[in-house]
């Protein structure tokens, strides 16, 4: 746990371009989480793999959003790791859906590298990684 004095000078990750990142991540959280909740609760058996992956994507997006808003060095590192995981996820699942479409009865957030979401899922982690690396030094 961090003390009060430390949180006062906690490095901000949501100033400048970070605002846009938080906004886009927030949109993806709402999109991925609501979509997977709906699909899992109504029709899970139709495409369990696809719907589970959407739920995982939603959780990862949620964690990154929280880290960005919270700020600080630990959160920055955690967000960086998650962005890397997200990038691997979207590339892996994107390739998987192209190579073996039969494994997915329905599309996920990460299908075809996030084409349904204007490729935001693949562009966002790359942008975020650059932003988080640049934010390493306070001030």
């Amino acid at each position, binding site marked *: 746990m961090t003390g009060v004095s430390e949180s006062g000078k906690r490095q901000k990750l949501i*100033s400048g*371009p970070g*605002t846009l990142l938080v*906004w*886009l991540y927030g949109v993806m959280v709402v999109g991925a989480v609501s979509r997977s909740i709906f699909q899992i609760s109504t029709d899970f058996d139709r495409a369990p793999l696809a719907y589970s992956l959407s739920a995982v994507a939603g959780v990862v997006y949620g964690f990154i959003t929280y880290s960005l808003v919270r700020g600080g060095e630990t959160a920055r590192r955690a967000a960086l790791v998650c962005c890397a995981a997200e990038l691997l996820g979207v590339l892996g699942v994107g390739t998987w859906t192209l190579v073996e479409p039969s494994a997915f009865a329905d599309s996920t957030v990460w299908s075809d590298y996030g084409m349904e979401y204007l490729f935001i899922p693949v562009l966002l982690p790359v942008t975020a990684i650059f932003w988080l690396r640049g934010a390493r030094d306070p001030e």
Partner: protein
Amino acid sequence: MLDALTVATAVAALVLAAWCGWAAYRDQPTKDWHFIGMAVVSLLALVQLVVGIVQLARGEKPEQGTTIFVAYLIGSFACIPAAGFMSLAERTRWGSVTVAAGGVVLAVLEVRLYDIWGG
């Protein structure tokens, strides 16, 4: 009936996106006029939410399901206000970029709403 409103909201959202994009290009934060623009677009989305619920109440069915339809209606209503509050906290060009991105997101939501309702 809903279609005209959907098209109007999508066009208004894109105009708002272009306007705030222009402000960002000129390195300006969102100003009072931008917030009035956001209020207009949000009002359109609110009217759409009400009209959509009224149509559901009258027994009309969206092609792709009522739950998804209502979720998208609420999402499109919340979209611009959320971006607007973030631009209040970020008084630089990046606040304007965020609202511009919000406008684009709303336009996409409107296209999806059109599909969900069934054209």
